[in-house]
Every structure is written in C-alpha cells, then in structure tokens.
C-alpha cells in the first residue's frame, strides 16, 4: 500500500501581496503505509494546507510530494489519478457534497474512475454502510441531511473509491460521542483491513490519543513535534505553548504525581491510566 513522503515543502498564500503568508515552511516528513497518523495544530498552523498537498489540490511552491516514491506532479495532467488513490474528506462536508441525491454523490468518484453501473452500485452500498448511512437516505438530496448525516455522506463519497491513502480533516466534528467512536473505530478498522495509510486532522486531543499510532504537531507552518501519542502528550507545556492542549486524563496523571501517586506522565487514555493505577491491586 501507498506511502506519502513530503520533501522540503514550502507554500505561500498571496505571494507579493501585503498579506503574504508562509503557510508551510520547509516541511519534510513521511506518512508510512499501514499507520494512522494524527495531525494537530492551532487554527492557521498550516494543517489544512498540508492535507491539500497530499492529493494535489494545492501544488507546493517548492519541494516534492512523493506517492510511493513517485513525484505526484511529474505529469500534472494525470493528477486526477492521484486523487483516486489519495482520498480527502474535507472539514466542512457542505464543501464536498453537490449532487442531486446522496446516492449519486457517493457514486461520483467511482463513476469517474470508470467503473460500470453494477460496480458503482456495489461501491455505493458498501461505502454507505461503512459510514453508517441507512439505505433510505440514499434517495434524498444531500442538502436535506442533518449535519452529522452530511459528514457521513461526505466520508462515504471518498470511501467508495477505496483509497490507498485516506486523509480526513476533522472527520468527527459535530458528531456525538457515540458517533465519534463509531466513525473513528471504522476508519481504524478500514486501515487494518486494507493496509491503507490514514491521516486524521483533529482538534480533539482525546480522539487523537485513542486512534492514532503517531501524532504530528504543527505550529506556524512548521513541524514542531512528532512521535507516539505517549511521547507527544508527555510534553504538555510545549503543546500548551503552541495553542494546543493535552487530554484531560494526562492532566490528572500530572496531578496524581503531585499528590504522591506516580503512574507516569505518558498517560493519554483513561483505560491506560486505570490500568496503571489499579493493576496489581486487590479488588475489594
């Protein structure tokens, strides 16, 4: 499965204008196949610009984007092929949905890939089920759906192409806790089944801690930290300094140490904290 490499990517908005802004500043990193990578950063840190580089929606001013070692901009005419392989679910589903019915909207990608009618139907049904959209919603206009349903429809539209690299910008924003767990759990499952590489952008530190193998931290267009959730969230002060936060449970672990019960500072999920705290104890 596919691996994406960024080499010295720089991107500037409004070049030459008074509001010129360097959104990405010499970013080099690898998104390995078969991993869920979390991308966190304050608003305006460059996350959304970065994810738009991955499927060629934006072209870097300098540097290269490599998909399995091959520069995606080598033949700019074929950039559409890249978008079949690298699926991007945008932050606001309204920006992504456009067709008359949910069914047609989800089927748009497969249709452009040249699938026949029968295959498209199968792909749509599979993607809708994946995203938790009930069949009767497929005949509706995507604009008659609730916010949560729109988010699921946008996700289904990308999943229908079975991308090798799946990029999700805030896939669970606005979903209730049960819905968040369901969607993020299914994305994790897809990654494990298909071996795809998954990149999730989110403002929820708690979700990042639960679902990601690795976490990347961006600030002001630069990559400032990367590592496992345990490594990244144990650097609370630095995260807070760049406008982010740590999961609440990580704060509890710090307070516990201050109160004389040291369970370590590399705590980022409640289950893990409970395990450290209670294992080896006699249950009364």
């Amino acid at each position, binding site marked *: 499965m596919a691996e994406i490499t960024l080499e010295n990517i720089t991107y500037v908005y409004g070049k030459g204008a008074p509001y010129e802004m360097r959104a990405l500043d010499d970013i080099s990193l690898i998104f390995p196949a078969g991993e869920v990578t979390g991308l966190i950063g304050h608003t305006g840190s460059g996350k959304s610009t970065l994810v738009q580089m991955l499927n060629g929606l934006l072209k870097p001013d300098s540097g290269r984007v490599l998909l399995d070692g091959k520069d995606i901009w080598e033949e700019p005419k074929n950039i559409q092929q890249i978008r079949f392989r690298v699926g991007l679910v945008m932050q606001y589903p309204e920006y992504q949905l456009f067709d008359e019915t949910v069914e047609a909207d989800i089927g748009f990608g497969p249709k452009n890939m040249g699938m026949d009618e029968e295959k498209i139907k199968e792909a749509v049904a599979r993607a809708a089920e994946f995203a938790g959209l009930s069949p009767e919603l497929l005949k509706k206009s995507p604009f008659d759906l609730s916010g949560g349903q729109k988010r699921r429809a946008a996700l289904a539209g990308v999943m229908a192409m079975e991308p090798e690299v799946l990029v999700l910008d805030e896939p669970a924003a606005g979903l209730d806790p049960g819905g968040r767990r369901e969607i993020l759990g299914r994305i994790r499952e897809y990654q494990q089944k298909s071996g795809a590489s998954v990149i999730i952008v989110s403002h929820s530190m708690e979700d990042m801690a639960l679902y990601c193998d690795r976490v990347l931290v961006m600030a002001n267009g630069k990559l400032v930290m990367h590592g496992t959730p345990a490594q990244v969230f144990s650097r609370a002060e630095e995260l807070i300094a760049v406008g982010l936060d740590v999961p609440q449970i990580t704060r509890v672990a710090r307070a516990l140490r201050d109160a004389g019960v040291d369970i370590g500072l590399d705590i980022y999920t409640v289950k893990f904290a409970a395990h450290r*705290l209670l294992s080896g104890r006699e249950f009364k």
Partner: protein
Amino acid sequence: MSDIIRAEHLSYSYPGEEEGQSVQALRDVSFSVKEGEFVAVLGHNGCGKSTLAKILCMILLPGEGKLYIDGKDMTGEDVTEEDIYEGRRKVGMVFQNPDNQLVATIVEEDVAFGPENLGLPPEKIRRRVDWALETVGMTKYARHATHRLSGGQKQRIAIAGAIAMDRKCIIFDESTAMLDPHGRKEVMDTISRLNREEGITVIHITHYMNEATMADRVLVMQDGGILMEGTPEKVFSQPEKLWKAGLDVPQTTELLWYVQQAGYDVALDIFDPAACACEIAKVLKGTPHGRDNA
C-alpha cells in the same frame, strides 16, 4: 428569579416528503430556564437538541404545547407578529460554523448589523457596538476584516453581534465544535463571563462533556424527550446511563468510575484534574500502586 423560558409539553414534527411520513423531533418536552441561569444541553445527533433551540428562538413554531418567553405566551391564540419579533429580540442564537454567520466584511460593521436593523439612532448603535466588542474582548479588532480572524475570534464576533441586540438569553448551538483547543477556551471564557458579569441567560448545546460541567444545570435529551436533568454533579454521577444513551462523561469521572469498580469508595462528581487526583490519592495511598507491581 423569574423564568426567561418556560416550555410546557412542546412537540414538533418535520413534514415528510409524502403525506403521513412526518418525523417527530420533539415529544412532550417540558422545562424552564431561570433568568441568569447557565444550562447545558447534551444528547446524541438527531435527539432534537437543534430543533428545540430553533423553537426557543422562534425560528420554528411548536406543533403542540406552550412556550413562554419572559412570561409572555408565544403560542397563544392572540399572539401577534409584534409579540414574536419581541420574543426573537430577547432570545438570540450563535451557530456552529464560524464562517456561516458573519455578514459584513469589517468586524464593527458586522456587530452593528443587528442594532441597525432595529432602527436605533447612530450614537446608540455606536455605544452598543463598543460595549459588545469590549465584553467579548475584541475591541482592538473593531476595524479588522472578518475573514482574517481565527475561528475562536469569529465566534466571539458572532457573540458580540448577538449581545449588541440587548438579548436576555443566548442559545449556543455547538458553537465550539469547529474550534481548536485555544479557540474553544476563548469562547467558553467569553460565554461564562457573559453569564456571570452581564447576567445573560445561557443555553449551551455541546458534545464536550467538560463544557457541560461549567453549567448550573444539565439537560440530557434522547429521542426528542428529556432523559435526565440536574446539576452537572448529579447527571455525571450516572455514567452507565449516559454511556447507554451514546454520550460520555468527563475523563475525571470515567477514571473515578474505574476506581470505584475496583471497590474503592470514591465520589464520581469531580471534574477538576487536581481534585480528582486528590480523591484518588486519598483512597489509594498507603498501599503500593500498580506501577511498582507491574
């Protein structure tokens, strides 16, 4: 304190595409909100939260039941258009997407939009706009372009726009969902200051349990009705019930629940990380803890 909002047996159904296909979004909902109160509303997607919000600020009219705004019956036979406008002026709403609710290109013009439409004299508009921007801490951005602000700043401008209308009550419909942790804190600090210092009644709809712990009272909705109601302490002390409803509890409560399941006597209604740590340390200290044994 009098009730700013009183709802009695409210029901609402959305019309379906065909006859007889209507979807019931609210069933027999009764509750009241006191003036100056801070109420959080929780519930899974599609439970009727947003429908309720739209009824409370009279974007939608209830199918059945009674709605009183500041003591005035909005559902009576003799209610006039004038009464509805008066009600709408008292209860405002701030939405989820920061990009969907600013109408002007300059910050102070956006905040002035509402008061201008009330036909207020210019000097009064000026005073209200200045006060509103001061209250949300955005005075120095008065002449900035709205599209260049961060998400949290945009939401604070939307709040300024709402309070510039001299509202008594503001409903926040997942107004923090799209923000980064810093923006979320900015908006929550602003909301809680409005409530404490300006006495504005707050109804805050959210999926973030930590935000709900800041409220005086929590309403939990399920399938168009009210499932639970009480102080955050009372509501979050029942994690099993919330989990079953597809919701969550603050992480402090979840950890305390594990400790309680292990047989220790701890309270569940603690939301501050330091206080949670103290409670756990109190019951665990003196015995060797997990890490040493691992």
